[in-house]
């Protein structure tokens, strides 16, 4: 029953998201044909007749009603057909997503995980050893978090890319010397090129995890069972990890699952600053080019993964925290 109710709720949420997803791009000003023509105009002259040839090519006709477009949209989604991208014509939306998503998941996903682990780890220690030097990390990391992200990223890029060139300035890998594929030099290059963007993401988000974890640790430490555990003579390491941290980490875990859901949304700013070939830059292009199909495709992926992450949290929470399992039974 619990599962059914959850599933029903998620179905309704999915439908609502898909519908909004359909309408929002269409409310934006601009006409994809017009935009394509003007982009073409930048390469060379275009004549008035170009419009007709592009309309013929894209099969764009405004004659179809919104309702007809909507039902068509839902039925092709059901078949897994996301349509054809206008900005990346003639590539299909699925192929663009397929090309860009791995970069984003790799970079933002890894950075989110590292940031979470580092934040929770440091927060645990800071909470455990209140008043130690670790506490002074908190203002520092929260400062990094409060600096606008693009500014932090630009400064780091300038310092570590231009002034002291430790890291590359742009791109996902060394396009000059390595060939993409499962080979050592390429993977090494991807790691190297991803380090600086990842570093900026971690720097700007670790503070939140750390602060939350530390405060939860502090309140957990004052619980009676902590005194009991200490009285039983358990090793401090065991108390910290099994008694304090395990209880304190619960709110962070649900926050973590949600932020994993948002990983596929990528980070438009990160990808723009570092010219990273992920899904965020594809989304930016799609918006600039009134590319409804691509926008819808990307929003769909984002919606699905956020809903999926929520569902996962809902279902897994019970297993992580035995108390919730008890209540439900």
């Amino acid at each position, binding site marked *: 029953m619990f599962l059914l109710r959850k599933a029903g709720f998620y179905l309704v949420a999915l439908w609502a998201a898909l519908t909004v997803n359909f309408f929002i791009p269409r409310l934006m000003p601009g006409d994809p044909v*017009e*935009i394509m023509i003007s982009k073409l105009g930048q390469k060379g002259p275009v004549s008035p007749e170009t419009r007709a040839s592009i309309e013929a090519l894209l099969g764009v006709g405004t004659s179809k009603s919104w309702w007809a477009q909507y039902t068509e949209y839902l039925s092709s989604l059901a078949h897994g057909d996301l349509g054809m991208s206008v900005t990346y014509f003639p590539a299909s939306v699925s192929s663009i997503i397929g090309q860009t998503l791995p970069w984003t998941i790799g970079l933002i996903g890894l950075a989110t995980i590292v940031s979470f682990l580092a934040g929770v780890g440091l927060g645990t220690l800071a909470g*455990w050893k209140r008043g130690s030097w670790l506490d002074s990390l908190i203002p520092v990391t929260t400062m990094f978090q409060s600096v606008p992200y693009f500014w932090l990223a630009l400064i780091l*890029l300038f310092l570590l890319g231009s002034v002291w060139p430790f890291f590359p300035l742009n791109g996902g890998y060394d396009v000059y010397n390595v060939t993409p594929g499962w080979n050592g030099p390429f993977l090494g290059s991807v790691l190297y090129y991803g380090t600086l963007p990842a570093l900026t993401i971690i720097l700007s988000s670790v503070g939140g995890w750390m602060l939350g974890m530390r405060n939860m640790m502090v309140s957990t430490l004052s619980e009676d069972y902590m005194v009991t555990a200490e009285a039983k003579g358990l090793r401090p390491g065991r108390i910290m990890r099994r008694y304090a941290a395990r209880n304190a980490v619960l709110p962070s875990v649900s926050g973590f699952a949600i932020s994993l859901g948002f990983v596929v949304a990528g980070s438009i700013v990160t990808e723009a600053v570092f010219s990273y070939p992920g899904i965020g*830059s594809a989304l930016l292009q799609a918006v600039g080019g009134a590319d409804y199909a691509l926008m819808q495709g990307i929003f769909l992926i984002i919606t699905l993964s956020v809903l999926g992450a929520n569902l996962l949290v809902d279902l897994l929470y019970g297993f992580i925290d035995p108390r919730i399992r008890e209540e439900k039974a």
Partner: protein
Amino acid sequence: MSDLLPRRGRRAGVALAAVAAMALTLTACSADDGGDKKNAADSQITIFNGSTGTIVENWNPFSPTFLQPTNGLIYEPLYYYNFAAPAEPAPMLATAHSWSPDGKQLTITTREGVTWSDGTAFSAKDVAFTFDLIRKTPSINASGLKITSSEATDDKTAVITFPETSYANEAAIVANTPIIAEHIWGKVDDPAKTINQNPVGTGPYKLKTFSAQSYVMEKNASYWQPDKPQIQNVRYIALATADAASAALIAGQVDWMSAFLPGLEQLLAGQKNLTYVNTPALTTSIFTCANKDLGCSGPQTDVAVRQAIYHALNRDQLNKLAGGGFAGTASPTMLPPERDAKWIGDQANATIPGAADVAKANQLLDTAGWAKGADGIRAKGGERLSLTIQTVTGWSDYISLNDAMTQQLKEVGIELKPSQLSWNEWNNNQVQGKYQLSLDSIGLGASTNPYATYSLKYVTKATAKVGEAAGTSGNYSRYSNPVVDKAVEAAAGTNDEAAQKAQYTIIQQEIVRDLPYIPIYVNSMLTEFSTANATGWPTNENKYALPASWKQWDNGVILSNLTPAK
């Protein structure tokens, strides 16, 4: 408690050291990756042509989203037109052409000794095939050519016939149609939809490797121009922003790019390998919705107001404040005066003075009945002389222009209200005529013949009522003048330059008075080069091609002229 931290700390310390070591080794490898390779066989340059994010493979010159090197590097036209300087068309795949006396038949003599990059010989049959394919396939007929037939009479002569006099389409035919190979494209089912993998062309380069982030073109060893090209490999890369591009330029990772970089002189000072060239080509203008009869509203529909704005602008100051000092002097005829001097009928209309003529502007407005109000802004019949002007968010030089013009026009009692819109909305407003004033630019048509500008921007045929879409890059001003319409038609009916010029002189008299587009200056077009890997780039003294890295056709001409740096 206290024995915990050291253990944790140790572990963290080890991890950190490992990460640092990895980063160091990676830095080390990449440092020697960029080593110098300067012998000619390995010569390579890198171009940023404005592509951002993921690159999608598409070498079909008839597709609207083809990759730019398709035209110029892989495929070539019959003639090459240089937009950067006054020059005769340069023969490429054609060596001569002639029109029948009625302008309905074009005979093209093709070049001998040209081969396709797969080794097959090129002949007039390929030319005839190209135009026949365009005739048969409306979806690839981007120039809207009306063709009756296209045949090769022998191996070096192609004859194209048209249903009507087609002198005006000469540029589209000879300079803007890529010639494709019959033995390849004859087998393509839908020429509009193919992405044309492994393209076969006659141009100086062919595709070597492609990936979604970068692609490499390599020298076509059997190119028909002897000893050209000399650069072995040309790499194109994608970057997200102009900031990233300028950083890459300074770091030596990009050899050729085109972008307006604020503080360019300072940026390049001390970089001995970097240089730039400025090729102003587009006239930055205030577009006005000028025609009351087609539904425009606002004070700018009064010709006296447009003339007053024209005279009240201090263009020297605008160039300094917004143009970075790189802009060229415009002409009220809307032709770039340096390149097109021979087309300007009355030399009094050749250039606009840099200083403002405030007295003239005031006098024009006084005569037209616009009287100064208490707040210093003029009004007539209860209508304040207040105008909105739109431009695109992020076009920083245009935004500065608007701010400076607001100050300048206030002097003569005109209130200007700048607004910034998204590109889509801005463009849509122009197409639909839903604006009062708008900043945009005019120029770079199909050819250097003024017909390219006048037949699009000024004729009644290319416009529509406010609320309906005007023709593509057409008459957004809603200007309609029978004298201009007639002269444009007459110019299209002849290929005698003197007769054309006589018609253009008539047009120029009308538009200089009516000013549906108020010219400001010929905007800079800055291109930055590095001479570290290659030399022979266009210079301010020798503009043998339009150097913009995004320009099709010109790319191939420039790359053919480069030599590896010593």
